[in-house]
């Protein structure tokens, strides 16, 4: 059988790749996709721990994470469409309206 640490290591690798996308890319669309990657690595950890310790709570929290992610993506893409309509830019560095 696959040891638990392999799943945790896969979660670590995917988390670091997603964090790299969030921190290094300047395109808002790719930043949002990298956020999805981060949440999916967390889901892998939840379900792996739940499976190896015989607990259902990991799966339930994974379901909640998926539901909240759907809400987050809907709102984020709505904001993105409004932003592109008003400022016609996709670079996160150009969006400084809330800086004051």
């Amino acid at each position, binding site marked *: *059988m*696959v040891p638990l640490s392999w*799943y945790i290591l*896969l979660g670590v690798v995917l988390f*670091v790749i997603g964090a790299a996308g969030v921190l290094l890319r300047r395109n808002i*669309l790719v930043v949002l996709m*990298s956020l999805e990657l981060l949440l999916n690595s967390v889901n*892998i950890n939840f*379900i792996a721990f739940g499976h190896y310790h015989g607990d259902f709570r990991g799966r339930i929290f994974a379901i909640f994470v998926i539901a909240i992610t759907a809400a987050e993506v809907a709102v984020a893409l709505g904001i*993105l469409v409004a932003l592109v309509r008003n400022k016609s830019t996709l670079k996160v560095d150009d969006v400084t309206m809330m800086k004051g």
Partner: protein
Amino acid sequence: MGQGFFLLFAAVSVITALTVVLARNPIHSALALMACFLQISAIFVLLGAPLLAVIQIFVYVGAIMVLFLFVIMMIDVREAVLQRFLPGGNLPALVLLGLLGIEMLALVLWSDRFSVSEPVAVSGGDEVRQLGTTLFADYLLPFEVASVILLAALVGAIVLARRESG
């Protein structure tokens, strides 16, 4: 056999995740992210959670990625394709990422709590039935809160994406 399948799915998911970050065109990123979600749902099946795998495919691949592709088609991404995709001067972020990765790898590899190799046998009975009972009995309030959050996100997305004075 399980190890081989896990290594295959993990390798493909890591490669597609790297493609998401490194691809120049956002459409290529979206398609690679879809492939990565499919691999992760296969890993959920290996972990004995087929219901979660189906939910993953329905919600992520079926809904969220289609939303992403619609938005990419709505807005003009040609300007984003032409610009430099990885700014070279972002050294603090790279150092931070390296430290984060090394720290997490060291924590996982040095600890002996993650070396469990055999899953605990779950008490008998239907898995989906137990999951539903736990979800709707013990976690009813978070479930309702999640539904309210989804409704608020629905209304908010419509209000945000609507044209002004329309």
